[in-house]
């Protein structure tokens, strides 16, 4: 298996030890213990930024899954109940939140694909290049989506 570590200049001091203990196929390991480390971006590599974004967007999407089920449950209340929700859902604020959802889906989906391919050894580990290339692609899709969402507003 190829070495999946970031270049030494980008690594945290303790990464080598963690990597040594987690060699083999599998997830790209986290670099510091505990979720608090996700938000600490000081002197972190692109890999750490990608990891943190994946966790944060993932948690947001789990929250959205249950919010979505709750919203769809208003359909059980009949047409009036659904129409009441629609009035709220088509305000600019909610359309903006739709865009935030698409942002989360793109970051999590594209970055997750990248991590899967690297973790399984199908592609060599070029954290920076692969991350920013996919994020650039995601940005294009996001702009297109924004134009679709707000362009159709009347």
């Amino acid at each position: 298996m190829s070495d999946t570590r970031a270049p030494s200049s980008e690594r945290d001091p303790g990464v080598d030890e963690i990597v040594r203990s987690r060699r083999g196929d599998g997830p790209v390991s986290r670099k510091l213990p505990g979720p608090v480390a996700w938000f600490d971006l000081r002197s972190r590599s692109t890999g750490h930024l990608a990891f943190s974004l994946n966790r944060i967007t993932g948690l947001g999407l789990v929250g959205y899954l249950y919010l979505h089920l709750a919203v769809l449950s208003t359909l059980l209340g009949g047409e009036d109940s659904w129409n009441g929700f629609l009035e709220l859902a088509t305000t600019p604020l909610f359309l903006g939140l739709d865009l935030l959802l698409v942002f989360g889906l793109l970051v999590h989906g594209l970055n997750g694909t990248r991590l899967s391919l690297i973790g399984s050894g199908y592609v060599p580990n070029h954290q920076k290049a692969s991350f920013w290339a996919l994020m650039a692609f995601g940005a294009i899709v996001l702009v297109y989506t924004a134009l679709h969402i707000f362009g159709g507003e009347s």
Partner: protein
Amino acid sequence: MAATTSPERSTRSRSWRWTAVTGVSLLVLVTIHMVAHHFVVDEVGGLRTYQHVLDYISTPIIFVIEGVFLVVVTAHAMLGLRSVLLDFGLSEQRRRLLERGLVGLGVVTVIYGFVLIGVLASRA
């Protein structure tokens, strides 16, 4: 390169593989879901009227796709939550409790989702 073969490592690898498999499946399913709801209809925000939604979900192929989507997205979410919560360094006992809790939550979510789309499809 020597790989660690402890039970914990094996469980983590298996969990990671399922996360990856469900994640890749979701790329397809989410794309279908989003396009069907938001891009092939003219109205702002996608499917709009109550009847429009009922007609959509009662189409057999759509019902199956949405059902598969529900199962896969729930599995992916529970695996992801497990991974995040294990970052807190839980003991073996708490880890088992967490896993049972997540399986339970996932099962309840899937059952509720199927009841929801089943009721809506029957109203069309």
